[in-house]
């Protein structure tokens, strides 16, 4: 007999054990353990999820800390007169659970980028800046700038109270059903060189 011969039997045994009613623990004990175990697991999972949404986590790698973070620190989303700050995840991670999970799974691909050092130097980052930005712009365009709209909305916007150029442009944006990222590329980071012109004029 080899190990391979034993493996199906072991799995079948485990499955059979799992399906067997408990003769040792009461149903109440199992329910209580499952309840608190569930809370612990879910709490831990969400805590871990939230930890990866923190600014500190995002700039834990030098690729973000030395490049996009430094640019963002000079913008209104970092410092402004009201003291309301939008951190990385506010713009780049959806709030609702389903979309957040999808985004987190997608973002796990960035681990591979970290391992391979695809943006490990300023030169490499600049070389990839346009491609990275285009991915994010496409995501924002596709979801109607959902993360922007967590804080900003045309419905809540009084364009008459805005400065002249913002007021005029927002009136055009509303009339033409534009989405935030159509005009606000580069609002928190340096615009890449070689940007393509949009086709949706």
């Amino acid at each position, binding site marked *: 007999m080899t190990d391979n011969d034993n493996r199906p039997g072991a799995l079948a045994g485990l499955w059979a054990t799992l399906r067997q009613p408990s003769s040792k623990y009461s149903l109440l004990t199992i329910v209580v353990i499952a309840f608190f175990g569930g809370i612990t697991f879910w709490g831990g999972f969400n805590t871990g999820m939230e930890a990866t949404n923190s600014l500190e986590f995002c700039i834990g790698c030098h690729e973000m800390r030395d490049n996009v973070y430094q640019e963002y620190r000079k913008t209104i989303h970092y410092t402004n007169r009201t003291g309301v700050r939008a951190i990385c995840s506010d713009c780049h991670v959806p709030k609702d659970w389903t979309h957040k999970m999808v985004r987190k799974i997608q973002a796990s691909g960035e681990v591979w980028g970290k391992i391979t050092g695809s943006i490990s130097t300023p030169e490499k980052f600049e070389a990839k800046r346009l491609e990275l930005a285009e991915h994010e712009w496409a995501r924002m365009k596709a979801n109607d700038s959902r993360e922007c709209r967590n804080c900003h909305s045309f419905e809540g916007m009084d364009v008459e109270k805005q400065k*002249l*150029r913002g007021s*005029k*442009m927002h009136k*055009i944006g509303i009339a033409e059903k534009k989405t935030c990222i159509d005009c606000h*590329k580069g609002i928190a980071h340096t615009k890449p060189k070689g*940007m393509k*012109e949009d086709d949706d*004029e």
Partner: protein
Amino acid sequence: MSKSIVPVAVAGILCALGSLAAVAAPDWSKVPKRDLHVFHAGVTPIEWATKKSDHSGSAGMRKGETCAGCHEEKGALNFNFKRLADKELEPKGAPKTMTFPLGFQAAYDKDNLYIRLSFKAPSGGADKGDKDNEVKATILFADAKVPQAAQYGCWQTCHTDARSMPGADDKKTKYTKEGAYELVQWASKGNKVSDGSVTTERKMSGGGTGAKAEASKSGDTYTVTFMRKNPGEGKALPFGIAIHADNSHGRFHHVSLGYTLGVGVNADISAAKF
């Protein structure tokens, strides 16, 4: 010798007085003054201004909005001057004064159009490419064939490949792709007046405006008065102004946005009839 000099000198004085009399014809105290603002525009040629990824306001321009319609607010310009002074839009270095006011008056009679500019030319420029002239004042008037001239002012002559733009040919002057501009300029050295044009290239002479100018400096305020032929009553002339201060040259000027000057018609600014 002295006998030959005297008539020439007298003739010169008479010509100068005649010129001064013509230029100074309007009673400027009765002509409304409007404060325009000129600014250092950096590397923002028409290609930049109309490119959406560079200038989101280009969407407004395509809708017929004027530059001043968005950027002139509460009696000043609302540009992001920090951005205009940044390396991306001003790789050579921005002047210390990014914008300053310029008093603008205009009047006309049946023969001539008179324009008076008054301003304090700032020092602290980043470029001193014109060793001869401390200050120059230029006005461009667009003809009807320049596309969107009433919206864009001088920007239709300002191109990314024109001299003093980064990497551009030093011999390539400003130009238009369509239509033409009349160019009148006063330069401080010798009070030189140029009557030129901008078409496929800029020419500093051969213009048809019959431009004359006089200038004075009181304290640190320059007053430059231009006289040119009346373009015809009932016209609204698109125009723009450039001030080259502190010996600057090429694109290192302070420019106005585009406006229209009404001669007998309502426009952004209407010339007074006298």
